[in-house]
């Protein structure tokens, strides 16, 4: 197990080295393919209900774009459902999965089947390679990665659409594009990334990223810090306020009934 970890680390270091070595010509590509996300910081106040993130960018004329909005990968613990006694569906086991982004939204400038195999890793099913299924006591009997993507799609945290990227005018051989990614309301506060892959003839010719940060503001921020930093006081207050509200509403109805 340890040697595997070491090997992975070594691979990662090697990849990093290769990327930094190659990044000089790649930078030339990214310089000509610009990207900007608006808003760059998502304010999650009392009125927050998810937002439409607008992504603007420019790419060389005639190329295609695939966009992906993701967050940092995390570990998840899930229950696996199965049939018991060949009749009853219920939770039959636990599965631990690693490297799962909480959110993943994908869009493209053309249907995926016209873009070739190079974009496969940007699609939802592409997460299959990144997600690691932990081998617990017994091997899961289901396709965990596939079911995980289904589960997240049901929640609206994973979404894939195609053709949502609209191209604009061509200026000096550069074409602008715009896309709207709908950020779900269940987004957690944290740092996110919009990644763009620029393609021509099925080959990725450039990549670029734009950071997006989501943070609690106003009342939700206050309430959240209260619940986490003064949790006992918060619980007692929640109870007392509930009791008083109940009494007040009871009395209001009582006096109404007397009339």
């Amino acid at each position, binding site marked *: 197990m340890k040697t595997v970890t070491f090997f992975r680390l070594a691979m990662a270091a090697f990849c990093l080295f290769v990327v930094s070595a190659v990044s000089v010509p790649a930078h030339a590509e990214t310089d000509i393919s610009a990207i900007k996300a608006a808003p760059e910081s998502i304010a*999650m*106040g*009392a*009125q*927050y*209900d*998810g937002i439409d993130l607008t992504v603007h960018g420019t790419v060389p004329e005639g190329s295609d774009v695939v966009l992906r909005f993701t967050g940092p990968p995390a570990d998840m*613990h*899930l*229950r*696996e*459902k*199965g049939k*018991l006694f060949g*009749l*009853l*569906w*219920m*939770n*039959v086991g*636990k*599965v631990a999965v690693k490297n799962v982004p909480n959110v993943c939204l994908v869009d493209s400038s053309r249907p995926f089947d016209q873009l070739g195999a190079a974009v496969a890793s940007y699609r939802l099913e592409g997460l299959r390679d990144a997600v690691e299924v932990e081998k617990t006591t017994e091997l899961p009997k*289901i396709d*965990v990665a596939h*079911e*995980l993507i*289904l*589960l997240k799609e*049901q*929640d609206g945290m994973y979404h894939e659409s195609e053709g949502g990227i609209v191209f604009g005018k061509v200026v000096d051989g550069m074409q602008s594009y715009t896309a709207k990614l709908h950020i779900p*309301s*269940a987004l*957690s506060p944290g740092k996110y990334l919009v990644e763009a892959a620029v393609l021509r003839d099925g080959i990725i010719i450039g990549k670029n990223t734009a950071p997006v940060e989501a943070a*609690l503001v106003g009342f*939700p*921020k206050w*309430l*959240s810090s209260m*619940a*986490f930093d003064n*949790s*006992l006081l*918060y*619980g*007692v*207050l*929640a*109870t007392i*306020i*509930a*009791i008083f*509200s*109940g*009494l007040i*509403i*009871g*009395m209001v*109805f*009582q006096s109404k*009934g007397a009339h």
Partner: protein
Amino acid sequence: MSLDLNLYLPIAGNSVNCLAILGLGGVVGLLSGIFGVGGGFLMTPLLIMLGIPPTVAAASDSNQIVGASTSGTFAHFKLGNVDFKMGMLLLLGGVGGGSLGVQLIKILRQLGNADFLISITYVLMLGFVGGFMFLESLQAMRKPTATKVEEAPKQESRYARAIGALPFQMDFPRSGVQLSVLMPLLLGVLVGVLAAIMGVGGGFIMVPVMVYLLRMPMHVVVGTSLFQILFTCVNVTIMQSWQNHTVDFVLALLLLLGSSIGAQVGTKVGKKLGGEQLKICLASLVLVVMVKMLYDLLARPDVLLAYMGGH
């Protein structure tokens, strides 16, 4: 306009439509006012459907029930429908039974088949309680009053003699019954164990227990049940906030606003309905929930993975 109706809940980590939450609270409050059940077995699954994580849904619901049952107890107290003595004894047993049930679940989880036991207990309990109440009330409603009176003492005598033989007899004037102190204590323990295993407040088991085993009149049962639920949920709310940070106070207040109004209306509706009608309505509700759970067990789920925390 539609923007104003949405509210972001930081603990639940999602935004909700205020009207939907108020309406949900109202419906569940109405039921709890009529039947004296907490409504947790209805509210939590519906909140999950609205995008609230299971743990937050259950804990915030407890917070809401604190307010709703305060309001309900208050209304029933004014009508003279709360048997405090009986309520305290049942509560005492319930707290003990609850702790026992939590330990039992821990042991079962280690043995590995806890989920199976929980689901089966749930369906069997709901089916048994609902079916029994339904049939019993139906018979009582069909029979002319004369035959009922004639038959009642013969049926009661065996059970009455058995519980009459128990030591520590005590008078419960509010309920108009005389019982051994051991009865409410032991039944409280039993309901507490079941409630802990099933992860619910236990109102819908407690009500039939009070009606059939403690022989209390239906209207006193409802008030006393609410009084008892109040204490259980104060405890749960504080523990959940403190240990797990899963109580969303804003969500609870919204639900409370809806459910308090619902509970007030429900109390009045319940007063107008006869005892047998009340029983048969509650029985139908319990049976509907049971059928839904049974369906979930038998039908293949869309997704074969689930988040931790829910049942």
